[in-house]
């Protein structure tokens, strides 16, 4: 007798919270990419001289820009957190029989994140 093959709904990612959170995680890439496209535009305008540059700066001051930034930022943060939390799955360090606890590895990532962010901010805003 022929076995029954169930259909797997395209909405599977709505069926359970972990699946939904996975999809959100994957979707963060869209916001990150959109921001990168903006960066391309930014650099292009920068290369066009002061007038073009200040036009972008004006744009950045618009409420719409600020709102979009905030939304994108939330997703970007979600990306960073999930990314760092998953690294211990990939990098397993062992000393003899003992495995370095995962939280130390993700912890190191989070510290690196803070440091990099501070340096970037310092270079752009201060130096």
């Amino acid at each position, binding site marked *: 007798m022929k076995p029954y093959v169930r259909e797997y709904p395209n909405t599977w990612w709505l069926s359970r919270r972990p699946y939904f959170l996975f999809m959100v995680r994957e979707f963060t890439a869209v916001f990150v990419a959109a921001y*990168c496209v903006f960066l391309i535009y930014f650099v292009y305008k*920068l290369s066009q001289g002061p007038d073009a540059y200040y036009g972008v700066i004006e744009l950045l001051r618009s409420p719409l820009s600020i709102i979009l930034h905030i939304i994108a930022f939330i997703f970007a943060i979600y990306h960073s957190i999930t990314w*760092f939390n998953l690294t211990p799955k990939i990098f397993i360090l062992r000393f003899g029989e003992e495995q370095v606890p995962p939280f130390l590895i993700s912890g190191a990532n989070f510290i690196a994140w803070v440091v990099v962010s501070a340096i970037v901010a310092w270079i752009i805003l201060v130096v």
Partner: protein
Amino acid sequence: MSKSSEPIWWSLFAAGGVVAALFIPVLMIITGIILPFTLTGEEPFVFERIHGAATHPIIRLLIFCIIVFPLFHFAHRFRSILVDIGLLKIRPVISVVCYGSAIFGTIVTAIILWSFS
């Protein structure tokens, strides 16, 4: 089974994930909050300063990396999102479109940065 080209795409994806995780949030804060609300004054964002910095080759290389790797990160993830929501049958097309746009973005970025003046 055929030799897979996936390692190329996956390593670009992984590099993009790292770059995005480390650099993007702080940049978003700067362009999305600090700049519009002038929290650190107007001075850091005057044209001459930013433009001057961007002419430096190392800074330009850095900008290139910050833009390009996350594009591949996006391409990789978006490809699987489309498969996940039911487009498995046209996966080859999806791959071409996703990675193609990342490559296109890379070329555009390279041209802009190369000819930066």
